[in-house]
């Protein structure tokens, strides 16, 4: 497996495993359903690649987000922090592999599904949400992933 393919596989695995780990513990139905569907979609993607270790930054972001019980922060983590960076990463890598387009398509689809929940009442209005959300962005930035998940060489 080339470095680029392995990198994408690790991102897909990170999203899949991270969501799978958190989803059973989250509480707010619409968020949980949306994230569960996303987890399944990334499971479908991950089987198209050779097994790869989960991307550590993706794993960490989702683990921290999962500490907020409603699922609002996990939804934010996926739809604002991880998803867009994953898409930019794919653009940066270019059409090296046919599977990349499938990853991009699934990601766009899941982001659209999450966007449908933007107006849903939930924990997003609670004090502390903004601080927690900002800390996830900062984690991405501090690990060198300000705009995309960069491939270390």
């Amino acid at each position: 497996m080339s470095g680029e393919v392995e990198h994408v596989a690790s991102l897909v695995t990170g999203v899949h495993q991270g969501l799978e780990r958190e989803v059973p513990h989250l509480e707010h139905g619409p968020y949980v359903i949306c994230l569960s569907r996303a987890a399944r979609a990334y499971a479908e993607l991950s089987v198209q690649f050779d097994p790869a270790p989960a991307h550590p930054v993706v794993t960490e972001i989702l683990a921290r987000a999962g500490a907020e019980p409603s699922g609002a922060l996990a939804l934010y983590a996926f739809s604002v922090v991880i998803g867009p960076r994953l898409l930019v990463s794919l653009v940066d890598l270019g059409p090296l592999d046919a599977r990349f387009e499938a990853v991009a398509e699934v990601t766009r689809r899941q982001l659209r599904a999450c966007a449908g929940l933007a107006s849903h009442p939930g924990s997003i209005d609670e004090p502390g949400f903004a601080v927690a959300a900002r800390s996830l962005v900062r984690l991405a930035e501090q690990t060198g992933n300000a705009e995309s998940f960069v491939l270390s060489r």
Partner: protein
Amino acid sequence: MPAVRLALAQMNAVVGDFARNVETLDRFRHQAAGVGADVVLSPELALTGYPPEDLLLKEGFIDAAELALISLRDAEGLPPLLVGTVVSEAEGAVSLAPSPDARNVVSEEPWPHVANALVALSDGVIATATKRLLPNYEVFDEQRYFHAGVGPHSIINVNGVALGLLICEDVWMAAGPAAELAAQGATLIVVANASPFARGRREEREAMLAERARETGCPIAYVNLVGGQDELVFDGQSVVVDATGAVLARARAFAEELLVVDIEARESGAGVRLDVAYPRDERRARAASVNSLAEPASEIAEIYDALVMGTRDYIWKNGFRSVVLGVSGGVDSSLVATIAVDAVGARAVRGVAMPSRYSSPGSLTDAYELGARLDVEVTTIPIEAAHAAFAEMLGAGLGEVPSGLTDENLQSRIRGVILMAISNATGAIVLTTGNKSEMAVGYSTLYGDSAGGFAVIKDVPKTMVYELCRHRNARAREAGDPEPISIEVLSKAPSAELRADQRDDQSLPPYELLDPLLAGYVDRDATAGELIAEGHDPSLVARVARLVDAAEYKRRQSPPGVRISKKAFGRDRRMPITNGFRVPRP
């Protein structure tokens, strides 16, 4: 060769009762852990129940299925589970056919975008197989609800055995999805099914599986649902065949069972690897019943058991605790009473004898005798007073006392009113006792003997009613119990007893002639002309065809009943009521 221990969870699901279905799946999963199974396989749509029908058009139902799936994810120390459920994807999902697809005519509605799926759970979802071939014949309506799966097949790898995942119809097609899976490296095909019972279906399934095993060179594990759902009864009889098509193991009919099977298959590196993490070697050594092989019963025994399970499940799944039925001393009501006792127990069954001025003394005696043999309470409510009152009331209104068919149907309707009143007073569901031959030719009274909650033998031709009675009596003899149905009931001429000296054969052809004709006209959809060409009497064919066509409006208003044939009245046979089609003689 590597081997896997599969646990086939032949379960009785309840449509829409997610909590109960999750509990059942959990119970089977724990049982499977106890025998060291590598993987548990559920039937098709085990989580939602089958068929969910238009519940699938409700977004809330699809969401509830997703939440139920989440509740199965956290299962530490338990074997992985392949669970049948519905999955929803945003439109344009890569794994589902876009609309329209060559194999599928899809709904115009963009949402829900739903697939019939088999989800592999092991510390979260690891793979999702979606049903490729959507049946749309007989009772099946899947193209109304589902998008067909496309793209690469799902394969999971356990101990070097590559399990290819299929759902029901997918395995029936020669050179179809099963062959595609084998070509992609699968060495064991596992199939989740909701295959309803019909006469001869088990033999058909096993012959098909043997053919598919030989075609693919793979063993096949086939798990079926069990239990009643409205008209349908799922018979179970889950089965595993080896690569030559020989049956390795078979579960019982009409009972829940965890069928545990050790299956050897060719080694393969294909598929997503499934690590079975819990300790199981010691448990395996203790497992007593592996590769058990239930002997299939005779066809008539299967039909009887289907009627019992279909009745029982309709009653309890709909929240009833008891049943009431009219007992006339005739063979139909005797059989239905016996089935009811076998389904829910004698204490939950009440028979009501409703003699009229035309009832023979023998009929009342036979009804009491049935009650005694079945240990069922029989209440007697004579209808004479109501009959006389109606005659007087109607006579004043019509200018003449009702006679002929009007008077006959009046008696039947008075009985219907009494049974429905008892139902209101006690909460018992009314079981009707009409058989398929009568239903076919309209030999029943609307709002009379056809009024009720469940029509137990509506798919049983009259000649088979006798067979079933003899079968049940033989079972009783074998068990050393008294025969439930007396020789008097079995030997007397069928009669509705709605006028003096009435017999069925005064209005209908003898059942020995009628039933084969109905099998042609109804079950095989033969035209009158074709039946005449087959040698049936032309005037009889014309008469029977006319009766069948004219009775469609009655059948459309009749209660549901257990389906035992491949062409039951109801979902299998959707004829227009307003119907001007007449086939001229050849």
